[in-house]
């Protein structure tokens, strides 16, 4: 980590800082990285053990969102249930 700190200005200048890395780790789930981006991603992945987890974490987040995002809807309020039933009855009349 100390070496990482010493290298920080250079990493920043070359687009291989931690911040650049997490942007790339996120972007690679939306689109293919360019060759330059892929090289910068791989370089930072090698030198920074903390950031290495970002990619798996983002994949896990997408998986958790797909699995749980639309589940466990709260129960419908009685007033809303009645409103919907009335709307369906009205639709019958047309």
């Amino acid at each position, binding site marked *: 980590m100390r070496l990482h*700190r010493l290298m*920080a200005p250079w990493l920043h200048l070359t687009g291989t800082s931690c*911040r650049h890395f997490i942007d790339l780790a996120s972007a690679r789930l939306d689109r293919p990285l360019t060759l330059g981006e892929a090289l910068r991603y791989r370089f930072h992945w090698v030198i920074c053990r903390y950031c290495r987890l970002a990619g798996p*974490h983002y994949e896990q987040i997408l998986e958790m969102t797909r699995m*749980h*995002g*639309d589940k466990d*809807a709260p129960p419908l309020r009685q007033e809303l249930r009645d409103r919907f039933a009335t709307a369906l009855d009205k639709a019958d009349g047309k």
Partner: protein
Amino acid sequence: MDSPSKDALIAEAGYLVAFAALRVGSLQDAEDLAQDTLVAAWRQRDGFAGTSSLRTWLTGILRHKVIDHYRSLRRTPTRMAVALGGVEGQEGADPLDALFDSHGSWRAHPLAQTAPVERASREASEAVRHCLEALPETWRKLFCWRVLDQADILDAAQAAGVTSASASVILVRAKHRLRLCLMKEGFLG
């Protein structure tokens, strides 16, 4: 295949309201959209082939209603600005700024502050919804369209009312904020 009964449609209404609320942000709009969906489904009930589940069929109708809702918002710029809560969905300063120093290195890596714990599926479900709801509205809409509805980035950007260039940036920020939120809840490690 028998057409669905009114009771069967209303039994799915809670799911439809939650589905719409996550995408439009306003509970009132979500309830209106769910009602429109149920009425449209009831009128077209003979068209339900039963090849997919009732929920899938209703969700397909609702998805179109949500897109129409955004089209109508875009035709009234004032409502759109209110719904988006800011220009291009930027919603204030970049939250990532506080996490990195001027060289783009972590000030304090989030992993140093949290520890993952074993959690039940229901807790995971609640945590995901909590973290999604904590996102700024435009970010949540965009993220849901992209991840839950698997829209391509252009369609997701259009549905959320942002440019595709902004959408890429917002998606990065949204994922990162979700990461921090889920780590704080003890789900990532």
